[in-house]
Structures are given as structure tokens and as C-alpha cells.
């Protein structure tokens, strides 16, 4: 107990040397833990965001784009697909449920997705309030969208053109909210759903208005089209063959969100490795700073340590003082570093959730904590070895005769 109090007193006495080690250690631990959290949480969040969507069928183009745009509702759509032909592709027993989606409008930045009620089956979504639409210009809100926009069942709203805020409002076509979905943790939570016919109606009207402004006749109604078709399979086995068959067609390409995320994770591996290396570099810097600080404090305390030997302390007890100091530094850095993560990670996660809709689980895992604590303690004990030996060899005679 006396050793602990003594080590604490020595650390406090020379806090100017201990503080840089503590800060560097905390930053290193925070950086490493952040990388570990992101590496684990991102795939989980993406998987949650996919909900029940196993397959996305869209126009020819990048599979990753298709996933980001239509499964995660993040990026812009690339084109349209003919609806009837797309329906024919998913009319197979391997598909459990499928629904088209048509993007193009928003309400204060929240996408209004034209679709069919089959989409609720794809996501296995349930209603928290109200029920599905039964007529054009009725809508259902995802849980997060309803919360963020303050929508309640029965509320009316007007969509705006485009996927971002600031587009022209379709004031002639107000929507009425018939239901609010229960949270699913998926991208569905962030959007508003309506019948695909409502979207077609609004867009045909918008195109007619634009043509009239140019003095041209209204364009003929286009054949039914959608941004993509989202599908859920009965068995993952279907994902082995179905995407290849769809890719082989002339007009469609298929993307499997899970595969694309795995590919993205592989592509991001060098970035993650780099950030992890930076974190470890911080940690190494912290260890070096701690070593310097401890060496400095031990040098400054040789008198005190020799004095303790003069008073009868065993050399191992002197070494223990340096070791206890190191452990205290490690513990302090660990607490401070994890404190930083616990405070800043939820803020970062909230920003990501607001921007990209990914719900990151940023609570440090027990395994992470065990590794970090073990790593920090090992580093500190290694760092404390040299000062400990110096402390144990401190000359009594020199001190007493000084």
C-alpha cells in the first residue's frame, strides 16, 4: 500500500513529466480503439442497413453504386430499368419477396421512395402506427424519418424534386401519411414510402410542366420504369447463380450487398491498416514518452530511492515503485483514452447516422478492452524495466554523503 502511495506521490510531484506520457498514451489508445471499433462496426452497420435486401437489380453499371444507391440509400441513381422485364427476372421460386423502387423526390432531404407494399415483405417491416397506403398520394414513413421530420399519422406533406434539399416542391400533389413503420435498423428507417404510381404521376406532371415552359407538347407517358428492384431470396444458395444470370442479360445488372460490402472492406483494408498503424505509432510514441518520463523521474529520484534502501527497502521494492508508477500511467492512459472514445465515438456515430444512415455500434467490446489493457500494461512494464533496474542499483553511499 505504501508503495502505491509513494508511486502516486512521485508521479504527482513530477506531473509535468508524467502528463505528456499520459496524453500520448491516451491518444494512442483512443486511436487504436477507434480503428478497432470502426473495423468491427462498419460491416455490422452495413449489414443492418441492408435489412432483408439480398439482391439489387438495376441498370448496367457499377454493382457497388447500385448497392450504395438502392440498398443503403446513400448515393445517386444511375438510370432506370423497365419494370415489367425486371419483374420477370424475379418471378422465380428462389426469390422470397421483391419490390421495385423509384427514386426522385425528397422531403427535407429524406428520400421519398415509390414502391409496392411488397417492399415491406422484403424488409420484414411492421407498422408502429397506422397502416399501409391504399390509394395514390398516401405515404408511410420509416421510424427515423418520422422522428426526424416530426410526422404523425394523418399528417400532410409536400415532396420536393430531387434527392437533396432545395428542389422544386410538388405543391399540387400533397401526400397524407397513413402509417409509421417500427424501427428495423435498416435504410428503410430513413425514408418515406409511397406507391410507385404516385411517383410516376408526379414526375409525368413535372415533365409536362417543363415541356409547357419550353412551349413543347407534353411528352407521352413512358412505359413503367423503376430505379431498381430490391429482392430477398429464400436461400443464400440462390445468390450463387442468380446474379450471374441477371448480369448476362443485356439491360440489367445484379448486385449482392453482402458481396459488395466484403469487396469494399477488402478495398478499404489498406486505409484501415494505415489508420491502425498511425494508432500504434501513437501508442509507441506514448511508450517512448512514458519511458523518457519514467527515466527522467527515476533520475530525479535516485536520491529518494537510495534513501529508501538506506531505510531498509529491498531492491525489488524500489523496482516495484517504478513499476507501480508505470502501471498507474498505463491505467491513467487507458481510462483517459477509453473516456475519449466513449465521449467522441457516439458523436461520430451520430454524424455518420445522420449523413449516411449507418447505425454504428461504437461501444468498446470486452475483447478490445482486454487487448488494450494487456497491451498498455505490457508496454508500461517493459518501459519500467530500465528505470526499475536503475532504482534497484541506486547507490546509498552517494546519497548519504551528498
Amino acid at each position, binding site marked *: 500500500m505504501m508503495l502505491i502511495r509513494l508511486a502516486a*506521490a512521485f508521479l504527482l510531484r513530477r506531473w509535468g513529466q508524467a502528463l505528456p506520457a499520459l496524453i500520448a498514451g491516451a491518444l494512442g489508445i483512443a486511436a487504436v480503439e477507434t480503428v478497432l471499433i470502426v473495423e468491427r462496426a462498419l460491416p455490422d452497420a452495413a449489414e443492418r442497413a441492408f435489412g432483408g435486401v439480398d439482391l439489387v437489380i438495376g441498370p448496367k453499371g457499377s454493382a457497388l453504386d447500385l448497392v450504395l444507391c438502392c440498398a443503403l440509400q446513400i448515393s445517386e441513381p444511375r438510370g432506370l430499368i423497365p419494370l415489367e422485364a425486371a419483374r420477370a427476372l424475379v418471378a422465380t421460386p428462389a426469390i422470397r419477396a421483391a419490390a421495385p423502387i423509384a427514386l426522385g423526390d425528397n422531403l427535407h432531404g429524406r428520400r421519398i421512395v415509390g414502391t409496392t407494399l411488397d417492399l415491406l415483405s422484403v424488409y420484414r417491416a411492421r407498422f408502429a402506427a397506422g397502416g399501409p397506403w391504399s390509394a395514390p398520394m398516401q405515404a408511410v414513413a420509416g421510424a427515423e424519418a418520422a422522428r426526424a421530420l416530426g410526422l404523425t399519422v394523418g399528417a400532410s406533406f409536400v415532396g420536393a424534386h430531387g434527392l437533396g434539399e432545395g428542389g422544386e416542391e410538388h405543391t399540387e400533389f400533397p401526400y397524407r401519411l397513413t402509417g409509421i413503420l417500427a424501427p428495423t435498423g435498416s435504410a428503410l428507417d430513413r425514408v418515406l414510402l409511397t406507391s410507385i404510381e404516385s411517383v410516376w404521376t408526379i414526375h409525368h406532371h413535372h415533365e409536362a410542366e417543363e415541356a409547357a415552359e419550353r412551349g413543347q407538347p407534353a411528352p407521352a407517358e413512358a412505359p413503367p420504369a423503376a430505379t431498381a428492384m430490391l429482392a430477398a431470396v429464400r436461400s443464400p444458395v440462390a445468390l450463387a447463380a442468380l446474379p450471374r444470370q441477371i448480369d448476362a442479360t443485356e439491360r440489367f445488372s445484379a448486385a449482392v450487398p453482402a458481396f459488395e460490402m466484403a469487396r469494399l472492406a477488402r478495398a478499404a483494408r489498406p486505409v484501415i491498416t494505415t489508420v491502425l498503424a498511425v494508432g500504434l505509432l501513437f501508442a509507441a510514441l506514448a511508450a517512448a514518452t512514458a519511458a523518457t518520463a519514467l527515466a527522467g523521474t527515476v533520475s530525479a529520484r535516485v536520491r529518494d530511492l537510495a534513501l*529508501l534502501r538506506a531505510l*531498509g527497502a*529491498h531492491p525489488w521494492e524500489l523496482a516495484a515503485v517504478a513499476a507501480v508508477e508505470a502501471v498507474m500511467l498505463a491505467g491513467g492512459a487507458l481510462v483517459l483514452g477509453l473516456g475519449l472514445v466513449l465521449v467522441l465515438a457516439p458523436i461520430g456515430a451520430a454524424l455518420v447516422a445522420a449523413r449516411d444512415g449507418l447505425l454504428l455500434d461504437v461501444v468498446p467490446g470486452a475483447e478490445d478492452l482486454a487487448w488494450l489493457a494487456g497491451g498498455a500494461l505490457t508496454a508500461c512494464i517493459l518501459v519500467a524495466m530500465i528505470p526499475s533496474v536503475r532504482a534497484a542499483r541506486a547507490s546509498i553511499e552517494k546519497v*548519504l554523503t551528498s
Partner: protein
Amino acid sequence: MRDAGANEFDRAEGPSLESEAVILERQGRAFARLPDLRLRPGEAVALTGASGSGKTTSLLALAGVRAPLRGRIVIDGIDIWSLPRAARDRWRGRRIGLVFQSFHLVDAVSVESNLRLAASCAGLRPSPSRIALLLEALDIAALRHRRADRLSQGQAQRVAVARALVNQPAVVLADEPTSALDDGNAAALLDLLADAARTSGAALLIATHDRRVLDRVGDVIAMAAA
């Protein structure tokens, strides 16, 4: 772990400090001879000699810090130089109280912690009653929570004396304890040291060339050339 105040119960019969034919070395050569000593509990002796005559080296040898070239030093029945280093350190902590010229308190901790530390380092359980008694006796009870580096010189002296006595040692060795003090303070410190050692039943050996000390301590022995 024993209490710091429990040493008196296992104290050996006979002299507290005994030395015989001790020759001191400097740079590998014999340079001084410590007169044979035989101090009983409560007895006070001054060890004198000119500067460089080997007084401090003698105290270091008696404390088990610096080995003599030859001779035998027995502290409380144990030949201190027959012990291995760690055991010698521990024996010193338990049986020998040291009062240094510069006090050498542990600055980072309080007055009370300095006393507790002296017991802990010697492998003894600090005795709160013993500590309280010493602090009271030396008139520093009010300073018990003050950090050592915030004490005046006079206060630090008293703490150093209290620390030397906290484990009820058999011997107190003091090295030039009055060298930086004026007459009044030197006399006060000597009285304090002698009274405290006598009350604790410790033999007191003061290495000094200060005439004021020699005048007050009855028994004086002088260093001799080797």
C-alpha cells in the same frame, strides 16, 4: 509483519553497537582506523577527528553501507557485514536510525508518511501510536500532514530525528547534525537527539568535529590513522 514499536521485545542482551579493529579504506587503500567501540543502550558518544579523517566513512561502515577493509561491526548482536546486501539493508532499517547532515527526507510525501515509510521500508507495520508519540515529543504533531519539502530547516531536523527513532532502533548514527546550525539550534538539536535516543533506549553515536557537540557529549573518541 511486526509492528514498528515491537523491536524492543527481541533486542539482544549486551551492547547495542560493538566494533573491533575496523580499518577503513579509500580507493582500495587503508586510510583510517575506527577506535574500538562498545556502546550500551542509552549511551551517547561523539566520534571526532579532522575533516577527511574518516568520520563519515566510519558511520557508513557502521551502518552497513560501505564495507571496511577489515574488522568486525556488530549491531544489536549481529555482525552486519556477514549479512547479504538485502538482509543488511533490512537490518539497518530495523536496528539503526540514521540522522543525516542534510536530513534526506522524502520530499514528495508528508511528515507522517516519511515516518510510516521508514517502518514500511524496514518491513515493519507502521505503529500509529509510536508515530503520534514521536511527533508529540518532538513538537511537530501539527505538521504531520505537511509535505516534507515545505518544512523549515528546524522542522525538517525534528522530522529526521523522529524518523530515525520510529522503529525503536538499537543504534542512532548521526553525521554532523549541527554543522549548519547556530549555537541555539545546535544545542536544541543535541538535547533533542540525546533525549529521544535515551528514551527509546538507543545508543547514540555522533560523528562531528563541532566543538559545541564535543562539549555537550560526555564521551568523545577520536579517529586514528590506519
